[in-house]
Structure formats: structure tokens, C-alpha cells
């Protein structure tokens, strides 16, 4: 009889070979998968090694307290030996306030700090529309940061208490009616202007009343006269308000109930305060202008289209610096004789127009990418032009163009450094030059640039991450 030997039970699986598992597999696949990859890896390791050996001792030998660069160097030599290099962060410690605020009065630092904190409270309902949890977390963080920073920034106790109460109210409101928070967003520009520049509170309040006049006129007339006529009437009434009522009314109210913060002039602004003021204002205003320009460029009306194309192509064809010089040198020719208005305001206007032209192109790309059927469907529903744009076209077009819009914003924020060329004190060239011109810190270069660069990096990188989050959140297709 023949005997058969057959296994009746399964062999236990053997572990995969060493080269096919764990760290070794990962290394083989990702770093040493061929001769070329191995060379690349070795080159990469060499680059990292040389960077680390060059920079690490410099970081480790950092000096945080010293009076001058030469003293820094002495301390480094004393602690790390002859020929050692070390960073001199003592400069940042002594001059950080100039990098952040320029020559803003020291006893009023709480005002920009408060304005900056409330900026996030104002942006929160826009950034996290309808998300109670994110909204509350952000508002809470703002409250916490302001609580810690306002007192050292020499804010009056009453202001701190008031702000905390306000933010607590916001957080409570966010749980019930988050949309109500948008009203704070609407009045924030006036509040921010008042905090930063100071002066009578009635100036921004009466100016904002112009918008109330505009909205009131529109709402009162829209039932009887239709949207177009009532909008035009509203704008006209608001213009009348700003041109003829604003100034006398402000003076009258100011005479009755004066309430003012100490005035701060524009030439005292500097550092990141200046960059963020210009950047945020320009971002806020360039988006609506950019959308209008893009719509104008896509319009069927020949004259409107030509004007928009001409404007966009002109702005995009010249460097921002020339536009800034226009703001500082040429506006005095183009405006009526003897008008002279604030240089920061002039720069903001030109930077806004510059960004708006770029945004218009970006948004035009989004508009062009929408399938024709969306326009036709909107028409088929009987929507008029503005309703179709507002309800159907723009939400989709803007969603497509989010990454490009945000990179335009990042570019705009980086470009705020160029205001140094018209005599404003930006953090990069203006302040750093002042610091480097000081006899104590002459010859320092890595530290100020690393400090300023790091802050720019954090802000810009944060913006690009937020845009990726927004893209994910708004993603409605299921591909």
C-alpha cells in the first residue's frame, strides 16, 4: 500500500523577509530604491548635515540679554570659546516693540493690540460661518490672548473689563444666534479706525451712519420703485450725507458729547502694525472690487467690458512700486489743488486697486470654468442678472478660485513691505534699517531678518492652510 504524506494543518505564516517589512522596507522603498535615489538621499543628508553644523551652534549660543552687538559677541566668546558664533536675540528683546508697532506711542500699545484681537472676533463669523464650536473656540482664544496681553500693554482696567464682557456676550450669542455676530463684523472697520488713529469717536460713527442712510433708503424704497432705482437713490443719499451732513454733524455732536482717544498720526505707524493695517484693509476691499471687475470683464456690454479690461491690464502690467510712487508723487497732480490726504490711506487705495485687478483675473478664471449650463439654468429659472450671479454663479465660481484668491491675498500681504519705498516704516526695510543704523546693533543681519521673516511665514502659511481647510469644507462633489 502506498503511503501518502499530506499535511493536515496549515503552516503558520512566516514573517516576511527583513527587506520587506518595517523600517528596512520603508528605507529601501523611500530612500534607496535605486542608484539614483541613493545618490539623492546621500546628497540630501549632506545638505541637512551642512546646514545643521553651520546653524546649530549659532542657535545654541544665542544670547538673550545684552546691551549691544559687541557685548553679545563678548558673551558668546566667554561662554563658547574663541571663534564661536552665536545669535544675538538681545536685539529683538530690546527692539521688538519697534518691529511690531513702529513709533506708535508706548502708552497706547493696548489700542492696536485690542484692534488686532477684535479683528479675529470680527472675522470669526465669516471664517467659520455657522460652526458654533469653531466659533466659540476662536472667540475664547481671542478673549484669553487679550486678557494676557492687554494689561501689559497698559490698557485701562475699565477697557479690559468691557472687552471681556463683550467677548463673553459674543460667545453666548454664538450658541444661540451666530449670524447676529456679523453685525459686529459690520461695525468693526469703524471701531478699528477709531482705536488705531484715535480722535473723536463721532467721526467714524457719523461716517458709518452714511451706510445706515443708504440701507434705510433702499429698504424704504425697494417695495415701490424696484431694486435698481432704490439702490441708486440710496447711494446718492449716502453721498449727500458724507459730502454735506457728515462734517457739520460730527462737529455738533462732538460739541455736545466729546468722547475721544488721543490722536495718533500716520507717520507714527510702523512695523507689523502698518503691514497688517494695510494688508487687512486692502484684502477686505479688494475682494468686492475684484468681483465687480471680473463681472464687468465677462459682461456683454462693450463699453463696460473695455473699461474693465483696460483697467485690469494696466494695473497688472506695471510693478506695484510704480503705483506706490504714483500714490506718493502723482496724486498731488491728479487731485484738486491743495487737497492733501493721509499717505497710509493713499497707499491702501493703490494697494487695494492693485490686488483687485489680480483678483479680477483669478475670479474670471473661476467664472469661465463654470459650465455654460449653470448660466442657462439660472436664466431658465427666470432669475435676473444680480440674483443669478449671487445665488448660482458666484458661489460656484468663487469656490473654484479659492486657492488662487488666497494666494493673491498672500502676495498682497507680502507686498505690503514695499511701502518702505514711499517712506513708510515697514517691518522689513524700514524698522530693520533703523535698528541696523543704531551704533549698538551695527553689523547685525541674520537676527532681524529671521525674526521678521518668521512672522511673515507664520501669517502667510496660516492663510494658505486656512484656504486648504476651506476648500475641503466646501467640497460638494463626490469624486
Amino acid at each position, binding site marked *: 500500500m502506498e503511503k501518502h504524506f499530506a499535511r493536515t494543518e496549515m503552516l503558520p505564516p512566516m514573517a516576511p523577509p527583513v527587506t520587506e517589512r518595517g523600517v528596512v522596507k520603508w528605507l529601501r522603498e*523611500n530612500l534607496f530604491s535605486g542608484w539614483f535615489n541613493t545618490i539623492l538621499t546621500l546628497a540630501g*543628508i549632506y545638505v541637512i548635515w551642512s546646514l545643521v553644523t553651520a546653524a546649530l551652534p549659532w542657535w545654541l549660543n544665542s544670547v538673550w540679554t545684552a546691551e549691544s552687538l559687541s557685548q553679545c559677541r563678548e558673551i558668546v566668546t566667554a561662554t563658547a570659546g574663541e571663534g564661536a558664533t552665536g545669535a544675538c536675540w538681545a536685539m529683538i528683546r530690546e527692539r521688538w516693540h519697534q518691529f511690531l508697532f513702529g513709533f506708535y506711542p508706548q502708552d497706547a500699545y493696548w489700542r492696536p493690540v485690542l484692534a488686532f484681537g477684535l479683528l479675529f472676533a470680527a472675522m470669526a463669523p465669516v471664517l467659520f460661518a455657522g460652526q458654533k464650536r469653531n466659533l466659540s473656540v476662536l472667540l475664547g482664544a481671542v478673549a484669553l490672548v487679550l486678557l494676557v496681553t492687554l494689561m501689559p500693554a497698559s490698557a485701562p482696567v475699565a477697557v479690559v473689563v468691557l472687552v471681556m464682557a463683550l467677548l463673553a456676550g459674543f460667545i453666548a450669542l454664538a450658541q444661540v444666534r451666530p449670524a447676529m455676530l456679523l453685525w459686529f463684523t459690520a461695525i468693526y472697520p469703524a471701531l478699528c479706525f477709531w482705536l488705531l488713529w484715535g480722535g473723536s469717536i463721532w467721526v467714524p460713527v457719523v461716517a458709518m451712519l452714511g451706510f445706515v442712510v443708504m440701507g434705510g433708503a433702499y429698504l424704504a424704497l425697494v417695495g415701490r420703485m424696484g431694486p435698481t432705482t432704490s439702490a441708486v437713490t440710496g447711494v446718492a443719499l449716502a453721498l449727500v450725507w458724507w459730502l454735506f451732513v457728515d462734517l457739520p454733524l460730527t462737529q455738533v455732536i462732538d460739541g455736545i458729547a466729546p468722547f475721544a482717544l488721543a490722536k495718533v498720526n500716520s507717520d507714527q505707524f510702523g512695523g507689523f502694525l502698518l503691514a497688517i493695517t494695510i494688508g487687512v484693509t486692502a484684502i477686505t476691499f479688494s475682494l468686492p472690487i475684484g468681483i465687480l471687475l471680473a463681472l464687468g470683464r465677462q459682461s456683454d*456690454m462693450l463699453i463696460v467690458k473695455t473699461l474693465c479690461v483696460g483697467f485690469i491690464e494696466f494695473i497688472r502690467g506695471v510693478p506695484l512700486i510704480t503705483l506706490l510712487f504714483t500714490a506718493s508723487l502723482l496724486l498731488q*497732480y491728479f487731485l484738486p489743488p491743495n487737497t492733501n490726504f493721509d499717505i497710509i490711506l493713499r497707499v491702501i487705495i493703490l494697494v487695494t486697486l492693485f490686488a483687485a485687478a489680480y483678483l479680477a483675473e483669478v475670479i474670471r478664471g473661476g467664472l469661465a470654468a463654470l459650465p455654460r449650463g449653470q448660466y442657462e439654468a439660472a436664466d431658465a429659472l427666470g432669475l435676473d442678472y444680480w440674483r443669478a450671479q449671487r445665488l448660482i454663479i458666484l458661489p460656484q465660481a468663487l469656490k473654484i478660485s479659492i486657492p488662487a484668491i488666497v494666494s493673491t491675498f498672500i502676495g498682497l500681504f507680502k507686498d505690503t513691505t514695499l511701502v518702505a519705498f514711499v517712506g513708510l516704516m515697514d517691518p522689513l526695510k524700514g524698522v530693520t534699517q533703523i535698528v541696523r543704523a543704531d551704533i549698538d546693533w551695527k553689523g547685525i*543681519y541674520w537676527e532681524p531678518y529671521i525674526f521678521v*521673516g518668521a512672522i511673515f511665514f507664520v501669517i502667510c502659511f496660516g492663510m494658505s492652510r486656512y484656504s486648504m481647510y476651506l476648500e475641503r469644507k466646501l467640497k460638494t462633489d463626490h469624486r
Partner: protein
Amino acid sequence: MAVASDVPKESFRLSMLIYDTRYRSITIQIFVLLLFALFVSWLISNTISNLAIRGKEFNFGFLWSRAGYDIGQALIPYSNDSSHLTALFVGLVNTLVVALLGCVLATILGVIIGVLRLSKNWLVGRLMTVYVEMFRNVPLLLWILLSYVILSETTPQPRDFRVTDEMAAAGEAPAASMMLFDTVAVTNRGTNIPSPLFDVSLGSVDLGFMSVNLTILAYILVIAGSVWINRRILAAARARQEATGDRPVTWWKSLLVLFGPVIALSVGLGLHLEIPELKGFNFAGGILVAHSFTALLIALTLYTAAFIAEIVRAGIMAINRGQSEAAFALGLRPGRTMNLIILPQALRVIIPPLISQFLNLTKNTSLGIAVSYLDLRGTLGGITLNQTGRELECMLLMMLIYLTISLIISALMNLYNSSVQIKAR
């Protein structure tokens, strides 16, 4: 049964200008045009009255008067006796040189980084990501200022290169030494590089406002001719391939045609390099490249390369995986897949944003003002403007020139773009 009522009689009421869609767009356009015309006439009348108040007049005559200032880097003949117009051209050439070199270098670097960022190598991919994020999120001005400061404050003085007799006897090396086979010296005053010299000079032709160097012209003509002949050779090879199916060997012909005439011309003219040498307290001979130029070029290249890398990466990623799978199925090797299948398609996605990066780079050369690089912005919009006090004319002229450069670049690149797009028949 309802009876269709008569068509209402056409009558024109004034309110139809607003409420009737047939007329509304015309009403709006006329209204806009009126507003625009009002705005422009307001600007012009303001300008006229402002000019009158300041006692100035609007004319460009100042361009022909003596400039009276020196420009460190003048690539066309210029002295302080030349006119403001010549200074303008010097600045324009300086702008274009930085822009051109920057575009070329940034493209090379950007393509390398973009491809490496896609590589399967984890370490290299991460390094390139760090590079891209670092350069994209920090203002260009910082890179310009930083490279300038590093170049001018950390580099050795010319006297550090000196080897004294005692040092030679003791066998000591000097504090600093020259690079690249002792031909390039980086000092705190600038970078000394060898300059090409010719034994035979072809002279130059004076065109009135500038003179044209015939030697450079000869080189340009010879190179253009070589490229043209090379294209003819390749076209002939392609025609033969399409007719008979087998492609003649062309690489040695191309090599000969492309490099032969240039080398022959160089030998004929006696081309040699003049190497900078330490004479006294400074280097003599060769060309001194100012740090403002080098810093601007380095910063523009590194900054724009980060953006180009992202464009290249996005372009390659936009190509459907099926394309490379199909190529492998046809039996193409990875290198040929990249060259014949992926890159030609990726190029279509890459070129439009690449154009706008080139435009950005060109416009960003105006930041050279931060390191006192005398480009168009520095000469026409800087010293000339300050000396003559003609803000209006200088600024308008400068904007016009930048606008023209931008339009020319985008026109050229759009031409190239349409040549690589799919030809739909």
C-alpha cells in the same frame, strides 16, 4: 375660450430706458461712459491747474539734456555727459538683463525642484517642500536685502587675498582665496569675474543715441544662423523619416552646426579671458559685478523658482495616470515616457502660469531699488526724476515702458503657448 389679445401698440416711454431689458444695457453703458469721461476730464483739468500752480509744463524735452550722474553698471556706452535718454536706456538694459537671466535661472532651478518634489525619495521630497514653503511665504524684499547684506558684509576685503613674501616663506595661505580655478574673486566690493577679450576688434557703429558693438552683433548673427541651419537639418531628417520610416543620424551634424561656427568665430577673433588679479589694494582686470546685481539676481531666482516648482509639480500631476500606463504598455522606457508622453502634455498646463511668473519676475526687478541697483526704476524713476523734478513725465514714461515690456513678454509667450497647445482641426 380665451382670445389672445392684440399685440399692445409699441410705444416708447422714458421709463423703458431703465426697465426694458432691450434698452437698459445701452442706458447703463452711456451712463458709465459719461461718468468715465467726467472722471478723466476732472483728472486732466486738475493736472493742468496743478501744473500751472507749480509753474511746470508737460514736455519730454528734459530727456535730451545732460544727465550728470554716474551709473555703475552700464552695458551700453554711458558717461555722466550722456543724456537722460541714454540713462533711461542703460536702466532699461539693466532691467532686461536681470529679468532675462532671472527667468532662465529660475526656470532651470524651478523645474529641478518641482520634479524632485515629486520624486519617490522621501527625504528629497521633504527638503524640496521645505524650500518651496520657505521661499513662497516670505516677502521677496527680505531675500533681496538678506542676500545683499550677506554678500557685502561677510565677504573678505580685497587685501585678504594678498600673499605677502613672509606668508609665502612661512607657507601660510591668505585669509581668502579665489574660486573656480582662481578666476573668480568675491570681495566686499563686488564679484570679480574674468572678462572675454578679443585680439581683433570689429569696431562699433554709432546709431545716434547708442552705439552697437559689431562683435556682439557678429556673435548674434552666427548663433542665429547656426540655429536656423540646425532646424533645417532636423526638418529634413523628419521629412525623410516620414517618407521612408528610418531616421538619419543627425546628432553629430547638429553638434557641428551649433558649435562649429561659434568656435571658429571665437578663434578668428582671438577670444581669450582676462582674469582679475590683485593689484595694490584692489582687483584689476576682468569685470566687477556689483553686489546689487548679484543679490537681486540670486533673490529673484530663488524666490521665483519656488513658484515655478509648484507650477511644474501641478502640471505633471495634472496628467492622467493612464497616460503613463499606456506608454508603459507600449513598451516605452520611463525616460522616454517622460520625454515623449508626460512632458509634452504637462507643458500645456505649465506654460500659462509660467508666463505670469515671468511677468512677475520682470516686474519684481523694480525692487532692485532696495539695494540701489540702477535699473529703469533707479535711473528714469529715481535719479532723473529727482534731478529734473518731472514726476509726471517720468512716472508716465516708466509705466508705459513697463507696460510695453509686460505686453511683449506675454505676447511672445502666448505665441509659444499656442504652438504647444493641441492643434484642433
